[in-house]
């Protein structure tokens, strides 16, 4: 599955990216994590119709908006959305 962390370059966005990488590791099989930031991130947010950053997108579907400090919670959200 493809996981995108979409942000505008803010510190929280970078932090979420780091945590998502570890969450993807825990999921293991066949995950690809992309970090979409700055201008490209803005464009992606607009495509998704979102006005908050960061956003976690799984297979093109919004899994979460905003920050989440728990790796397990991120993992759960990814799995839930990819179902």
């Amino acid at each position: 599955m493809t996981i995108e962390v979409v942000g505008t370059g803010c510190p929280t966005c970078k932090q979420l990216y780091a945590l998502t990488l570890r969450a993807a590791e825990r999921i293991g099989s066949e995950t690809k994590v992309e970090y979409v930031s700055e201008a490209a991130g803005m464009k992606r947010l607009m495509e998704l119709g979102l006005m908050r950053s960061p956003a976690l997108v799984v297979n093109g579907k919004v899994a979460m908006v905003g920050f989440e400090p728990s790796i397990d919670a991120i993992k759960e959200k990814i799995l839930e959305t990819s179902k």
Partner: protein
Amino acid sequence: MDLFAPFQGISDWLVYNVLQLEKGSHLADSLNFFVYDSLKILFLLLVINYIMAIIRYYLPIEKIRLFLASRKWYGLDYVLAASFGAITPFCSCSSIPFFVGFLGTGIPIGVTFAFLITSPLVNEAAVVLLAGLFGWKLTIVYVLSGILLGVIGGLILSKVNVRKHINADILTLSKNVRSNIESSENPTAKLAWGLWWREAIQLTRKLFPYILIGVGLGAAIHGYVPQSFFEQTLHSGAWWTVPLATIVAVPLYSNAVGVIPIMQALVIKGVPVGAAFAFMMATVGLSLPEALILKKVMSYKLLALYFGVVTIGIMIIGYMLNILF
């Protein structure tokens, strides 16, 4: 019956029975105050965070934007935007997508500012603390003045030339916003009690350390600073207290929930209410980190105007509270 009587019972029991402290001593007073206030605020926060999680679930900012852009409001949109700002949390992290999204949907710049001004000033955690520590009357006056400041500030800032003062990249991006888009995380009609509960606990846990520090300092002031310590110098007749409190607070940045318990303790010791509130509003409503991010969106001139309008508004509210309370 006092809803919070059980909390007073618990803290009395803990301080006088378990710890065997002498009633009336400074230490016992402070500790009792600390335990009681912490328990009361923790309880109120959990309740309000749960309610807010439900509201946010059904009314995310993406939806508010569509609602504001859905028709002509003839000025009512300022009031609506400021009121939505009061119930929606806003992280300056989202400043850029926020401006692009609002302007791109055709929402006027003044309405966008109305939201931006009220959002940090009025939030549910602050309301709970104010109500718990200062009473409902003052809280309602505060919330209404926060919304009014957003409306008036927005009206003043609506006169600026958007093309000249908003970053060109933001304007280009906003041209590509599809206003009819439906957010893909659009909630279904199903109830999500578990999700709201998790969110409420998470939010409360995040705020609680600030509250413990705030209440702790407040309790120390309560127990150790002599009654009416500030009265000679800072009585509400001293006109300079409000501007001073505002200016001092701008470079400081803190969470409202950390500042409010300290404010309460200071007010009990004689600091004028208006000065205390001006301090709190300037701490949460105006901050340097926020200015740095907003600089990416707007010109220095507009940024200075925005801070200027909010600063003056805060001082006016401060004076008004001094007169009323």
